[in-house]
């Protein structure tokens, strides 16, 4: 967290300036329980699965909302955790989340087809005219 002279709070950027220097974010360095790791998503996912297998645990964030960039591993199922926490404004839940971009991704696929449809229509018109 950075606070400026105007007492403004900024969104966490995972201390990208420290990461650029090959260091780890301040929260990871400060954590007494050493519960966090940071790295490329595929490596972190591998570690998460290894840890989940080891402790017979559960993973959150791999599939939720199409896959998030924070992956949680817990020995307690997340639906149980979700029941135990207070949710509301500024207090996120741990329920399953649909991929909010799934429909947009379908539309993106349609964008590939659209120019082909346009070309086909123009060629069709041309052949009708030349007949």
């Amino acid at each position, binding site marked *: 967290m950075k606070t400026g002279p105007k007492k403004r709070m900024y969104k966490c950027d995972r201390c990208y300036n420290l990461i650029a220097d090959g260091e780890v974010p301040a929260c990871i360095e400060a954590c007494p329980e050493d519960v966090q790791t940071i790295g490329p998503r595929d490596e972190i996912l591998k570690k998460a699965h290894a840890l989940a297998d080891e402790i017979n645990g559960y993973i959150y964030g791999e599939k939720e909302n199409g896959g998030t960039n924070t992956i949680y591993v817990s020995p307690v199922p997340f639906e149980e955790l979700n029941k135990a926490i207070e949710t509301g404004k500024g207090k996120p839940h741990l329920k399953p989340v649909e991929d909010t971009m799934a429909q947009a991704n379908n*539309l993106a696929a349609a*964008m590939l087809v*659209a120019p082909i449809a346009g*070309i086909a229509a*123009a060629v069709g018109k041309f052949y009708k005219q030349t007949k």
Partner: protein
Amino acid sequence: MDNGQSNARTISLPGRWFYLITILFLSLSGFGQMPIFKRYYIADIPGLGWLAEFFITHYIHYLAAILFLAFTAYMIIDYLLSQRKSRRMTASGYVRSALLAGILASGVFLVIRNLAGSHLSSDFIIFLDLCHLGLVMAFLFVSLYCFIYKKQWTTIR
């Protein structure tokens, strides 16, 4: 320079309306993504509340982009196959084509940026955003000029 005074057009009247309405919705939904309509209370005007809904403007932008891509491909191929012999592009036609090509190219990259697992550098994404917005502003002003001075895309050879 050509004044494009000919009444014969490259495109049918329904085609013109299709183009205008697609561009209207692309512009509205595109500016809605910035997002400016809630901030400046335009979304408070009855009937315009949807302009402040992120996913609504996002889907409309994608849907209108699909129609616009199909329309653009149709116009290019139709011009090359059926109209190139009898008509040629005007200077303003070339300017508008170039601006639209830039808008489409940056738009395609922005769609790729939105796909899960895409890795574009943040500097490149900022460049794309500014490019897309800047070219759209230029295109709208050029279109306004062409509308006022009745400049056509093509003219008879």
